[in-house]
């Protein structure tokens, strides 16, 4: 159903709203049918709603949701439907009536269904067991720790940085003092895309020839990014660079709310400096080909490029004060 687009920036709420809307339509339709004396039996209503949710998750949401998550959603929605159909005694009796009718074989038809069920269900279970024991040639699942815990300190170019307290030396205000709020006010805006607040103002546009201080450092960070990083992380910082698909997993998407937006700036500094090879034991299976950039960039360059990443994505580094 890709003709009906999910709108970037609104996708999470859009999914919930669409589900809520569909459930409401089901409820209204059922109410109308009940009024007309043609109400859908609770059993089929429950089964129908569950199937609808699974189809919605499989075919409506793009890119495809991994099976593990669909399994979680399927189980939770099944529990929810059970709570609904057995919430009251009347509803429960109504729900289980078709099942009991088949179990009791109250008519020839029900007896036939019972016979078919007694043959098909064990066969299906046997088939499932058989296929699950067949050898598989798929790569095994790896539960990868995307953001392993950083060490307390890291040594870059002979200098030790205490990651809990160290600050980006270029995140400064006009007076040259560290100022998180000042710099936060100058990042791009997230709306329907990511836009500079004022292209004509050197306080907001790093590529303005008059840009000074923070915005100038952002430009310098940008230059470093486009010389070194964009081949993999992409010119939109979304992990879709020229070489991205040569790797598995593909490089990190900084525009996603789950990557740099969740991290302290010092974490990103550490990851950039040490690269995939410097991941701790917790980072098993160390599936990252990022080079240890401390071998190619100076400490100052790393700080600037990190700052550029936050500026460009419109995210704020995590802080604890």
């Amino acid at each position, binding site marked *: 159903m890709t003709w009906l687009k999910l709108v970037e920036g609104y996708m999470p709420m859009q999914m919930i709203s669409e589900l809520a809307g569909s459930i409401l339509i089901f409820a209204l339709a059922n109410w109308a049918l009940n009024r007309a004396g043609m109400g859908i039996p609770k059993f089929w209503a429950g089964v129908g709603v569950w199937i609808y949710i699974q189809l919605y998750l499989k075919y409506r949401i793009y890119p495809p949701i*991994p099976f593990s998550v669909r399994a979680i959603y399927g189980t939770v929605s099944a529990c929810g439907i059970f*709570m609904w159909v057995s919430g009251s005694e009347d509803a429960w009796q109504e729900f289980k009536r078709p099942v009991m009718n088949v179990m009791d074989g109250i008519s020839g038809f029900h007896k036939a269904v019972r016979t078919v069920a007694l043959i098909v269900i064990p066969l299906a279970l046997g088939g499932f067991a058989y296929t699950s024991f067949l050898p598989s040639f798929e790569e095994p699942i790896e539960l990868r720790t995307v953001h392993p815990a950083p060490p307390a300190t890291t040594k870059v170019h002979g200098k030790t940085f205490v990651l809990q307290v160290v600050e980006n030396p270029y995140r400064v205000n006009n007076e040259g003092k560290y100022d998180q709020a000042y710099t936060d006010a100058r990042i791009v805006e997230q709306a329907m895309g990511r836009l500079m607040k004022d292209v004509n103002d050197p306080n907001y546009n790093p590529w303005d020839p008059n840009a000074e201080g923070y915005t100038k450092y952002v430009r310098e960070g940008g230059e470093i990014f486009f010389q070194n990083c964009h081949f993999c992380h992409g010119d939109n910082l979304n992990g879709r660079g020229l070489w991205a698909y040569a790797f598995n997993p593909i490089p990190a998407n900084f525009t996603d709310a789950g990557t740099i937006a*969740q991290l302290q700036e010092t974490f990103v500094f550490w990851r950039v400096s040490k690269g995939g090879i410097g991941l701790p034991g917790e980072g098993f299976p160390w599936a990252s080909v990022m080079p240890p950039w401390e071998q190619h960039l100076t400490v100052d360059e790393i700080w600037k490029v990190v700052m550029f990443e936050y500026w460009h994505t419109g995210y704020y580094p*995590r802080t604890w004060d």
Partner: protein
Amino acid sequence: MGRLTSGRTGKKFLAVTGLFVMGVMLLLPVFVALPALAGGGAPAAGGPPPDVVAAQEAEGAEGEEEKVEIGRDVYYKTEGPVVGAPAPKTQDTPEFYPRYNFESRVLLWVANQQHLYYGSFVLAVPIFCMCIEFAGLVSKDKAMAKKYDQLAYDFIKISLTAYSLTAILGGILIFTFLTLYPAFFGYLSSIFRPVMHIYALMFVAESGTLYIYYYGWDKMKEGMLKWLHASMSVVLNVIGTVLMFLANSWIGFMMSPAGVDEQGRYLGNIWHVLHTALWNPLNVHRILGNMAFGGGVVAAYAAYRFLSAKNDEERAHYDWMGYIAMALGVAFLIPLPFAGYWLMREVYAYRQQMGITLMGGLLAWLFIIQATMIGILFLTTNYYLWQALGRMTGGERFQRYIKYFVFILVVGLLVFITPHTIVMTPAELKAMGGQQHPVLGNYGVMSAKNGGINAIIMTTIASFIWYQRGNRVPAVKWAKFGNIFLITFFVVAHLNNIWVACYGYFIPANVRIGLSVPQVAGTLSCLFIGSALNLAMLKQSRELGPIRWGQIAPRSQYALIMLATAFTWMMGLMGYIRSSVRLFWHVNEIMRDNSPWAYTHTIGFGANVISFNVLFFWITIMFVFWLGALGAKKAPVPATQPVPGAAPQPVTGH
């Protein structure tokens, strides 16, 4: 008349004396331990480990000259005289880690978890007893007062057998520590020597108070003595809470040590050792958790008795007991996520990497399992309440709206349990185009999860309000206005919750963390204002019919059992997570774990051991329940027909 007055004065005197004795008993351990506290502790108890002895001997040979060495507190950064031995530097040898042909860590894990289960239970149940006994005391309805009293007695009866088991398991735990981890335990006891003595003495005081409280139930059932009896439950709970706080200080020290220098040497300030960065959040979180767990276990007991009841009277009693236990448990379950949030916040503030290991890194998937368990708890609670509406005339008015509540709960839960790090095959990873899903990835972060859990909690509160109204219609003059206000209040709270959850994506993390305050405030307002307003409206109400205790669907009782099992499983899980976050440290950054088991287990193995612990606990607690039922079955011996030559029979009034 004169004799009656003198009898009353005598009882009063007895009561006052009794209270005084209890007060002295309570303070006794503190007095006894004062010299130890003043002394500030000496070198390791039970003999220091071999490497420490060698170091001390070498030091002694260098010179006899006495000088006070000053050390710097690793947490408080204050200076103090070094009065303890350094933390032992262990090696992977049987000398430091004696072992069977089995993983010592798992043995310790099981012993610890079982002790904790029973400890939590016997700390929580007397708190319930206290509340219920007081409810009975202040109740004007005599029949109700008697019912409450019987219920409180039923509660304490269960906890008494469990109390013995707690002590036995505590002994097993200590032996396990001493025999399998002697170096570590020697170090810990050298730091906490005075605290451990106070702990032991408090345990004695707790036992004494508990036995007087239980066996004195019938003797102290009227007048001033009844008040004395109820006051005894307060003393009992004060001692129990202090006991728990002391035990918490040990794990607080292991996670976030203080009061020692970088080598782990004690600096003479016992308060610093106790009052570590995580002590208070742990205390609050554990006390709430214990209460919720205790409520769950008692509710499961009641459900078991309900399902095996032989007559309507029994069924009605255990239906009511299950409801009260569930309500008490859930009352403490509601603030539990907020206490957990505070604990995590303090963990992050203490060590960033510890927080990331927990919630974003190595142990993050266990938190998804935890979120699932929390969801199960709340969903089950709602389900039970909806079933309970069925035993009220008029309850059906609300049951038709269940589907809308189900929708909010399910959506809230789906958001709450969406993992940040998704399990997927490499093929799925490629198809998804990266580690993060553009739609679901947004549910994987804190902002959305706060929204999800608050929506669930608010819906649970609404279900409670429904339940309170089940068979009653408010008859106050302002009922219509009250209803409109109540509905508007909940709708606004939900909208505020959704808005804040979305807004959280567009602001810095420090502001976002602060935004949880209006979210929580909205939820707590629903709880306090909503419940208070509802109760005020029901002060004058029209009853549609009585509550038909005992006439509830058996499904509801299975829900109670599920609630208790989920509590047990979650408690085991969270204990494992809390302990695992130290990774390869016995005492974080002070004493390294050099045993062969200093690695983090796989999720599957961890889950299996947790499940084993849960199963073991439920098997043993079933035995405790069976013992409780056995006592109840004993037929009272009529006082008018004494058995010739028999010993005097115990009071069987209860």
